[in-house]
């Protein structure tokens, strides 16, 4: 988790420390694959947010209870625009 946070941040010292920990725990191949995931999601999050794609209905249905319990819907675009509707 610390590596995920550091990899997308700008704190070089924190990243160096997190990287060393990942190599120690997961090996150099583990570092490569962990960095790959952090990199992809740092990019793909911006694809989703920049293009306005909605969540698929089946995913929304599967996560409905969880999203209500965690209050995630309020962060959806409709919630943020004050329309009081759940994120699609």
């Amino acid at each position, binding site marked *: 988790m610390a590596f995920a*946070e550091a990899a997308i941040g700008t704190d070089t010292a924190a990243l160096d420390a997190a990287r060393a920990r990942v190599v120690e725990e997961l090996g150099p191949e583990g570092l490569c694959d962990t960095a790959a*995931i952090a990199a992809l999601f740092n990019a*793909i999050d911006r694809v989703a947010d920049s293009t306005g794609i909605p969540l698929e209905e089946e995913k929304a249905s599967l996560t409905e209870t969880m999203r209500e319990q965690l209050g995630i819907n309020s962060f959806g675009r409709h919630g943020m625009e004050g329309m009081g509707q759940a994120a699609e």
Partner: protein
Amino acid sequence: MALSFDAAPVPVRDDIRQALPNVWAAIGKPGTWLTAEERVAIAAETRHAYGSDCALCAERKEALSPYAVDGEHDSLGDLPTAWIDIIHRIVSDPGRLMEHWYEQVTTNVLPDTKYVELVGVVVCTVGVDTFCRGIGMDAPDLPTPQAGEPVPETPEHLNRELAWVPTLDPHHDGPLQKEFFPGGPPTAAHIRRALTYVPATARSFWEMANTLYLNGQQMRDFDNEYRAITHAQIELVAGRVSALNQCVY
């Protein structure tokens, strides 16, 4: 110098070693709607926005609404001011991009075709740079813009209701549908459709994404592990990064 992982501090998987240099080099080529010079300038500004202490971006990030704060970005100045604002917003506060902003941008600043291609260059730059930074490598040199003109391509059969941007409609039997949704409409997850308005942009992004992540079949195969980290570890990292980026998708 072209991106290479020959001197990487850790072993880099063969598919990443092949794909990321291709994706990086493509930024330096004429695009579908953008020139090579524009594409490289976008990559440069993306990198600058990510690593800089842009005061305007910082103020907007703290504000209740990023649309209530005006000012000038700390930028390289090689692109139109309005393009720089688009790039900085995508880089610094993507989770609060709004449809009304997209509509204003594509009405007043650049057409939706160029917008989608710009997004593609931004996200590929973020992806490549984050990976290099993650494994302890310096960011690669920006590609040198190659000569030539953009090669426009507008797909047939677009859907204009799903997202802010037009996307390829998966419910038609065409070569682009076969390429991007090989398993038919059920495999056309919205994220897979997101950049398809500009097929070359989508192609480049997915060349990067498919090697950094897992392909569709591997993603759902919980009986086997395909990476040095498990499915659970992959999703933990993915979820944490997405939460930090406030991506609700």
